[in-house]
């Protein structure tokens, strides 16, 4: 695409420095002292033409066109590592990178095909896999325990469980959903799901730069929330948690919010007596970027794992705030082929090697993207004796039955 046409695109999406600096978070960008901590901590920083430090330097020079026409920002997996380490506390991932990535996506000569398909699917079907929205709740039929579907039975509920796309469609995600339903049931939680009315929360689309798609999904989901009566939202999607907490709030999301891992951690007193089966495993926990670095929930999943009889918890060399992204955020779920074509190491493999080095039998996670990514990585690395489990799956297994 020529320079002139990308200038037109820029005008159409109304990017201006004024709009970027219109908020206190945006203005904070100007306090950058160019230390380079962001580039140093970024898992793909050495492959990035414009890491956050250089974006800010270029912004100061007033020549953002150079940044917008570089595809290097496709390497950003929105892992919050730069944000967590920035000594000035600049909201790099949420504010700067999102705005820049939106412009990059607009100006791309060719959108990587898997990412494009995922975005088109999310718009049309409400999920990136391109599955039928009419089958979103199909998994619930054989969940093993009753799962109430609000469109079929709209009575008020305590917990509105937002299952999200991977939990609804991905074969491994569905297994996690069944485990979660079993836990809700055992704890006698009054819960229900939105069934086929639920749509992708959209956070990965937003962090890939598709802000318009995110806005459309947010409008749709907010309209659905308003149809039903519930006390709180509990989601299995770590990225959905982020979307609701930081973005949907701006359009009126006022419901008490929890991620399933946090919800069960709060109920550990009730849950612990039910955990009767010994698992006798060495488990290492992978901190997801959103629950961990972005929200600071490091101990809750570890408390849950520690409560399982026979579990020995071991740590990877990078843990908690230093955890390495599985590579699935910010559109990375659909950029593996693109990264491979560039010759990059897959982050899921980099991370799986760290898990193997602990000598653990089980790699535990709490974000639905991670299971398939790590299972694939372990296959590639030829270390299939290690199993990948969501924390809720291990809890359900420890309940026996």
């Amino acid at each position, binding site marked *: 695409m020529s320079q002139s046409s990308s200038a037109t695109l820029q005008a159409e999406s109304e990017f201006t420095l004024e709009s970027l600096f219109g908020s206190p978070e945006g203005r904070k960008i100007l306090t950058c002292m160019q230390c380079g901590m962001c580039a140093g901590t970024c898992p793909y920083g050495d492959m990035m033409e414009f890491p956050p430090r250089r974006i800010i330097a270029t912004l100061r020079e007033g020549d953002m066109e150079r940044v917008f026409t570089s595809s290097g920002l496709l390497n950003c997996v929105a892992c919050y590592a730069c944000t967590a380490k920035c000594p000035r506390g600049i909201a790099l991932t949420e504010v700067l990178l999102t705005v820049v990535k939106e412009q990059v996506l607009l100006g791309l000569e060719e959108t990587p*095909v898997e990412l494009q398909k995922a*975005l088109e699917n999310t718009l049309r079907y409400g999920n990136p896999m*391109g599955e*039928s929205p009419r089958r979103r709740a199909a998994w619930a039929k054989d969940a093993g325990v009753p799962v109430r579907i609000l469109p079929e039975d709209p009575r008020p509920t305590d917990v509105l469980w937002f299952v999200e796309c991977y939990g609804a469609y991905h074969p491994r995600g569905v297994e996690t959903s069944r485990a979660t339903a079993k836990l809700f049931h055992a704890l006698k939680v009054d819960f229900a799901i939105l069934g086929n009315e639920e749509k992708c929360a959209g956070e990965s689309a937003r962090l890939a730069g*598709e*802000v*318009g*798609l995110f806005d*459309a999904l947010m409008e749709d989901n907010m309209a659905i929330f308003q149809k039903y009566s519930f006390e709180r939202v509990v989601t299995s999607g770590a990225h959905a948690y982020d979307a609701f907490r930081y973005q949907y709030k701006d359009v009126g999301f006022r419901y008490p919010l929890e991620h399933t891992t946090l919800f069960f951690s709060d109920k550990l007193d009730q849950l612990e007596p039910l955990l009767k089966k010994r698992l006798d495993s060495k488990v290492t926990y992978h901190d997801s970027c959103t629950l961990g670095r972005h929200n600071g929930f490091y101990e809750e999943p570890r408390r849950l794992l520690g409560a399982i009889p026979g579990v020995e918890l071991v740590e990877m060399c990078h843990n908690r705030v230093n955890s390495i992204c599985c590579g699935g955020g910010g559109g990375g779920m659909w950029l593996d082929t693109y990264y491979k074509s560039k010759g990059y190491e897959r982050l899921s493999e980099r991370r799986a090697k760290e898990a193997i080095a602990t000598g653990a039998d089980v790699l535990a996670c709490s974000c639905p993207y991670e299971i398939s990514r790590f299972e694939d990585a372990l296959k590639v690395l030829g270390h299939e004796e290690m199993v990948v489990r969501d924390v809720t799956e291990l809890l359900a297994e420890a309940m026996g039955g």
Partner: protein
Amino acid sequence: MDTLVVLKMVPDIVEELTLAADGRGLDRNQARMILNESDDHALEEALLLKERHGGKVTVLALDAPELDEALFAALAKGADRAVKVTGAAEGLGTRQAAAVLGQALEREQGLKPVDLILTGVQAIDDLDGLLAPLLAHLLGLPFLGIVNQVSVDGSARKAIATKECPAGFQARFEVDLPAVLGIQSAEKMPRYVPVGKVRAAMKSRTIELLPAPPAGEAALVAPELLRMKKPEEAGHAEFLEGSLDEVSEKLCEILSDRGLM
């Protein structure tokens, strides 16, 4: 270099297809409609030609559910004009659709003259022929199908169309313009258009409405559809195991048992 792209909405096979009560077609209330995939490629090829040679791209389609989204997406991608033919009967066969579109092209000011007419090489619900050759016949224009690349000379009087042939061959044809081309695939994947741009197009652009002209004498009689059925589930494949001789013997037995040998 003005190009007209004819688009068509087809049943989306991501959703389960159900038959109508009379068994003579799909249940249109259950089906969702999506832009025919090769029509999307035809649009992409037209946009590439516009980027190279200038000119205008017009998209034309018979009204159908979810068509507006597809037309606004086409405008957001770079089409200059979107025209929707309204009031034609639902679920027209390809021959009838070609007759209506052909009449619309003859009658509506400004749709012709055009240098190229592009449309997808086929659609999944073509039951009675392909649109591009029918349209070419009605308009008296040359036709080439299964095209995957188009280049045009400076005068826009001739085009070179690359056509996929059996056995992995590619053939290049020179064709006088105007012509109708059935596009198999564009030179690159159809471009992504961000949702924000489609929404902006919905606010700032309009879809022109064109009442369907009577199909007239040009309308060829559509074949009568007697019954539509879902494919029946057949038995599973049988694998013959053993040494080469054993397998050959079993194979001969099966064939002779069934009177085939």
